[in-house]
């Protein structure tokens, strides 16, 4: 099927940071941040035309440094945050900042999507404010308040979690509260996720092999899954529809699903990757679809029906609607849905450090490997219809 063929886009630089433009619900748009120590770093805005299968891109200059993490505001399409390395006086510092895309970018650089070097005048990002955390160490990631109004972000810096209030159209950032991870040795947050549930009052962080939950109102720890993974935990994601469910992945090549009410055992464990798993993402609408990216250069799309919020939800609806179609029902109930690997995508040739679902089209996702290759894939059509019908 031509339609299902992956679309590949190559960046000139190595890249780790990928996000979908969260506030954009019409266009399929991803943001990629590059990593280069020698050249000016860029943010590539990748637009995907689903109907024509065409990619168009725009490039914005990010001169502050190489981008380790990027995330888009859920409220304002034009606002995003990055974590970037700043090298000064043989010191490497990672900072966080809030940026605004220049309003003209859309019309600006579309003309020359394939020739960035010749792009006469790449536009710069407009700095809104620094998430100044010089006293708190290196920022590993910045998280927007999910579904919020774009006024709150959390940055994780070394062993601190800082909650920022953005005021004056995001040009002012003040720390409203913070939490610090205490313990032996040099503790460092490696990843975090702001829970969309419970009125966005919960945060989950990962450090070393442990996963911790935080209550943002009191900035205190609410749970801690020690040894969640055999080795480093690389990424976390909340199930968007089940408030206690959390996915994690790490260097033990495993993806684990947790019910944070019972942290002794994972609900489910996947062991499909053959190297460290760097990224895990639930589909925003159909949470049985789980995407993982690993340094074995693979992206795996799994169908975790047994722990999804809608394992049999559709069946109930069907029953109500079509009483006459008994055969149809039987067919559906007779084959209990199994957790399964839907597909393994092998388009990458280097470690895949980021995967992301499109915020506009729930059946579309992008993955980014270190060599700068961005691949846009779709959920197989058969499965899509299976889920929808």
């Amino acid at each position: 099927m031509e339609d299902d063929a992956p679309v590949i886009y190559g960046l000139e630089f190595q890249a780790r940071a990928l996000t979908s433009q969260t506030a954009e619900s019409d266009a399929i748009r991803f943001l990629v941040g590059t990593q280069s120590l020698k050249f000016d770093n860029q943010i590539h805005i990748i637009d995907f035309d689903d109907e024509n299968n065409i990619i168009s891109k725009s490039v914005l200059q990010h001169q502050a440094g190489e981008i380790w993490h990027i995330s888009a505001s859920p409220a304002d399409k034009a606002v995003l945050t990055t974590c970037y390395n700043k090298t000064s006086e043989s010191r490497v510092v990672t900072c966080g900042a809030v940026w605004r895309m220049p309003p003209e970018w859309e019309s600006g650089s579309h003309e020359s999507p394939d020739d960035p070097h010749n792009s006469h005048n790449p536009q710069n990002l407009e700095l809104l404010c620094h998430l100044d955390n010089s006293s708190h160490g290196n920022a590993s990631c910045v998280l927007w308040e999910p579904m919020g109004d774009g006024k709150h972000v959390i940055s994780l810096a070394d062993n601190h979690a800082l909650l920022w209030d953005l005021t004056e159209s995001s040009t002012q950032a003040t720390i409203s509260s913070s939490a610090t991870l205490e313990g032996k040795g040099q503790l460092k947050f490696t990843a975090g996720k702001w829970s969309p549930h419970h009125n966005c009052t919960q945060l989950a962080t990962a450090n070393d092999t442990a996963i911790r939950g935080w209550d943002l109102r009191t900035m205190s720890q609410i749970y801690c899954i020690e040894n969640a993974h055999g080795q480093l935990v690389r990424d976390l994601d909340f199930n968007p529809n089940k408030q206690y469910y959390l996915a994690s992945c790490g260097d033990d090549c495993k993806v684990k699903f947790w019910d944070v009410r019972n942290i002794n055992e994972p609900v489910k464990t996947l062991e499909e990757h053959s190297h460290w798993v760097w990224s895990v993402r639930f589909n925003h609408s159909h949470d049985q679809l789980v995407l993982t990216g690993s340094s074995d250069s693979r992206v795996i799309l799994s169908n975790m029906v047994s722990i999804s919020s809608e394992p049999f939800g559709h069946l109930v609806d069907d029953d109500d609607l079509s009483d006459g179609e008994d055969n149809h029902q039987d067919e559906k109930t007779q084959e209990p849905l199994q957790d399964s690997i839907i597909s393994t995508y092998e388009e990458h040739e280097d470690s895949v450090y980021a995967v992301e679902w499109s915020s506009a089209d729930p059946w579309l996702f992008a993955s980014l490997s270190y060599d700068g290759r961005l691949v846009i894939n779709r959920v197989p059509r058969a499965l899509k219809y299976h889920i929808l019908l």
Partner: protein
Amino acid sequence: MDGDINATAPGTTPPDTDPARKRRVHGMLKLYYGLNEEGKTVDQAESMDPCDINGPHFDPEVYLNKLRRECSLGELMDQETCMVKQIRSLDSDMQTLVYENYNKFISATDTIRKMKNDFKKMEDEMDCLSTNMASITDFSARISGTLQDQHAQITKLSGVHTLLRKLQFLFELPARLNKCLELQAYAQAVSSHRRARCVLQQYSHMPSFRGIQDDCHAIMDKLAQELRQKFRDGGSSAKDLSECVELLLQLDEPAEELCDKFLSHAQSRLEADLLGLEAELRPPLSYGPTAVTDPYTGPAHRLSVEPTAGSPTGPSSLNNPFLSPSSRTDILEFIDRGCNEFVSSLCLVIASYQELFVNRPQEGELASKNIPQMAIGKLHAFVDALATRYFSLVERRIQEEKSVGDNSLLVRALDRFHRRLQAVAKLLPGSAVPSQGTEIVVRAARERIKQYLAALQSFYLNSLTDVRQALAAPRLGGSSAGVGSHLGGPATGKEAPASLPELLSTLSASILNQIKSVLASVHLFTAKDITFSNKPYFKGDFCSHGVRESLVVNFIKFVCQSSRQFCESAGDRGGSTPPALLLLLSRLCLDYETSTITYILTLTDEQFLVQHHSPVTAVTALCGEAREAAQKLLNHYVKVQGLIISQMLRKSVETRDWVNTIEPRNVRAVMKRVVEDTTSIDVQVGLLYEEGVRKAHSSDSSKRTFSVYSSSRQQTRYAPSYTPSAPMDTNLLSNIHKLFSERVEIFSPVEFNKVSVLTGIIKISLKTFLECVRLRTFGRYGLQQIQVDCHYLQMYLWRFVSDENLVHFLLDEIVGSTAHRCLDPAPMEQSVIEVICERG
């Protein structure tokens, strides 16, 4: 005459003495007198011939005329002479005959005369006799006439006499009965009474008889009472009892009641037996708590109690109080006691009961009551109830039999148990007791198999613990010796650390021995001399399902499963299992797959002649499982070892400030450590696994020294990475490179050989190195240090892996990535790198 003459003529003159001739003479005479009837035919044949000289119609005239006509003179002359001669002989014959007859006549006359005299005398005597007889008759008639009256009287008197005797018996009956009662001659009393009973019954309307009858009744009631008393007392022997019962039955006691009483009496005795048995079941109080202790802790306990003793055969009862059976009877004794006391009494009861109630010749009134059926019914209920209790006791005892040391005792006990129940079966056909007994035996056998399985499993786990200890403390000489002795092998005391192959061989040998001994123990169940071994269960199901599936197959599965558990539990919680153990187990499982499983199952099938009625686990399935376990263990081993090295590398990369590092002068210690560890892993794996195949070495790398490793080639290899070129170039080159190299599977399954294992470990380590490097930013000297480190690794690691290009590729990637992450990428001269590495 002519024929005769013709006949005799050719011969000589006949001698007179010839008897034939004599007879012929008589014959001729007879003929002549017409006496002979035989001659008639002859006469008739020749009767008509007048010329026949011997015929009756002989006509001399015709004869003469014929002669004259036919014969010549000479012939006539001859004829005449012959005739004369014959006539003469005939005359002389006649004279002799006449003389003889005369003599006989004379003697006959004399005899007749004598007879005449004798008859006269006899006649006189006969006359005398007849007169005497007449007088006798006369006398007799007179006597009988006289005696007629007296005879009638005597007959009547004798009748009266008999009657009186009977009456006397009746009158004396009460007294007699009393006397019998006193003498306890109950049998006599009963038989007396029985004789009189009918009469008394018949004449009971007469007051005197009524009195007697009443007396008798009273006495008999008393007697019955006494009998019942005796019956109840129970002190008496079975024979007495049966006598009692017989008498009571004769006294019209209701049979049903008697049955009940008899049975209840028997029951009390049998119950005493059962209580005795039960008392044995209850362990003495002082041993109560220890009896609960699992005897399978034996081996470990043994080890600690007598670490140097080399006998693993049996628990030493001296040191282990809970294994000492002296305080309690063993099961054989118990069953013996049960058999001798309970079962034999039961048989006795059944036998005597049947004698009394069932097999009695049924007479008259008793027959109508259908006693046997009722009695049999009661007996069955009785036997069933008691047997159930007995069985429950036996089962309890069997359940207590948990020590798996000596199976023969149990088997013998069960055999005896089963054998003795056959007696019941014979006595009481149709009873459920024997089949229930068989059930118990079957259950016990099943239970036994379960126990053996548990014992095998715990043995296996203990062995593993020992191996683990031996691995954990290889430098402590004592422990390895202890392990050796425990595992049943010779104490490996010559060298302090027990080497892996030794541990493996002792482990697998001891497990195999244990399986064999268990099989031997279980085999006792099917021995020929065991009565229950020919039951269908023991022929079929026990062998195939019990021994093969439940015991052997389950054990093998357990081994695989427990091995797999090592992989799972250890993975998350930080590798609690020593890697060497994983390696050893993996080899063990692999050995199982290749040979041991087949061997064990063949052994089992041969020993037990398993006939597969139901589908059984196939050897291939088990082998597959073992192989899977081996694979998993080896993969896990690779993962764990790779992880250990990875951790070192990761720490070394993460904890250093690579931007501000100094110019490299040495290979970092951690790299040396990595090489050392890899070498020791190589040695370790090499102890258990074969070398494996390498891809052909390139000519230069086959030489040991890395210096020969063409520096020029090295240059060209690294060159593109180092040169700070346009980003496009780098991308293109690395992509082209990747396009033509195979995708490297990092945590991929390994093959069962050393090279593959080492390749896996090195892959994991280097990939970690790569990923860590990518997360850091390097200064100029940082890059150079990585260059030195990678070169060092390259010098030493290539020899361990199957494809050296893999190492080259990964190290290239590392250096390339470092160059990318370098703020000031100024690579070090290759020659300098080599010098540093040479220096060590």
